[in-house]
C-alpha cells in the first residue's frame, strides 16, 4: 500500500468518525481535546449520563454519586475525585452537541485525528518491519481499527 492510498483509506475512516458526532449527542471535553470513551475510541454518547458514567469509569472516580455542576444548558463540569489522594482532579466538560456548536467540535476532532494519522503513517512507512507491502497494509488497517473503526462501530450501534 503506497502512502497516497493509505492516506485515502485513513481519511475515509476519519470522515466517518467526524460524521459520528451529531447534534443531540454528548461529548467529554478535556483541556484541549475531545476525550474518547474507555475501551475504544468512541467520541460521543447518546446521553449525558452515559458520558459521565464512561468517564467516571475511565478515571476511577472515587465518588458513588458523580459531582457535576451545570454551567448552562447543555454544558456541565464533572469533577472526578482521585481514588488515590481523595482530591478533585481538574474538571472536564460534558457538552451537548447542538447545530450551533457541532461544526467546531467536528473540526476539533478532525484536527486531532489528522495529527494522529500523520504521526502514525510516518512511523509505519519509516519502520523497516513494515517494508513488505502486506505487512504495511496490515499495520495501517490495524491502526485505523484501533483508533477509529471501533468508534464508528460503537456509534452506529447506539445512534
Amino acid at each position: 500500500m503506497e502512502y497516497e492510498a493509505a492516506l485515502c483509506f485513513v481519511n475515509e475512516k476519519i470522515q466517518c468518525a467526524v460524521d459520528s458526532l451529531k447534534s443531540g449527542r454528548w461529548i467529554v471535553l478535556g483541556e484541549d481535546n475531545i476525550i474518547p470513551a474507555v475501551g475504544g475510541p468512541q467520541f460521543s454518547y447518546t446521553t449525558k449520563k452515559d458520558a459521565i458514567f464512561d468517564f467516571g469509569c475511565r478515571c476511577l472516580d472515587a465518588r458513588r454519586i458523580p459531582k457535576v455542576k451545570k454551567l448552562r444548558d447543555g454544558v456541565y463540569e464533572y469533577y472526578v475525585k482521585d481514588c488515590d489522594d481523595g482530591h478533585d482532579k481538574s474538571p472536564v466538560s460534558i457538552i451537548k452537541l447542538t447545530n450551533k456548536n457541532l461544526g467546531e467540535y467536528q473540526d476539533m476532532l478532525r484536527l486531532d485525528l489528522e495529527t494522529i494519522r500523520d504521526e502514525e503513517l510516518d512511523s509505519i512507512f519509516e519502520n523497516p518491519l513494515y517494508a513488505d507491502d502486506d505487512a504495511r497494509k496490515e499495520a495501517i488497517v490495524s491502526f485505523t481499527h484501533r483508533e477509529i473503526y471501533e468508534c464508528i462501530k460503537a456509534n452506529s450501534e447506539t445512534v
Partner: protein
Amino acid sequence: MEKYQLSTTRTFEDVWADMAPSEEALSSSPYPKKEVFYLRGDHTGYRWYVENFPVHRDMATPELKHEFNELMKDILETEPIKSGIPGILEFCKDYPESVLKDGSMNRYNFYYEGEAGNYWIQFLDMPKNYNFYAHAYVK
C-alpha cells in the same frame, strides 16, 4: 476593528430555524439554509491562516463576497485580533456578555448586520485548535 462595529446582541436566531445537509459542505451534518459559506482560522503565532468553506455557494453575490472580505480584513488585520489568542482575549474582555464558557474553552460570539448579508463571528480561546470562525448568511 476600525471600520465595523460588531454587536453581541443582534443574534440571527431565525437562521437556525431552517436547516438541511449541504452537498458542498465539508460535513454531512445539517447547515442553515441561509448559510453561504464560512471561514475558519488559526493563528500561526505570526499571522492568521484562514480557509474558506462553501455551504451554499450559489447564493454568494459579489456584494456579499465584497462585504465579507472587507469585514474579515477589518477583524483579522487590525490589532488586537491580528496578534492571535492574546489579542482575542484583550478584545473580548470589553465584551463580557459575548462569552459562553464550554468548560476549558471560552467561545466569544459577535454579530454584524451588513447590507448584503448577516455575519456571525466567533472567537475560541483553546490553544492548538481553530480560533476563529466567520459565517456568512443571506438576509
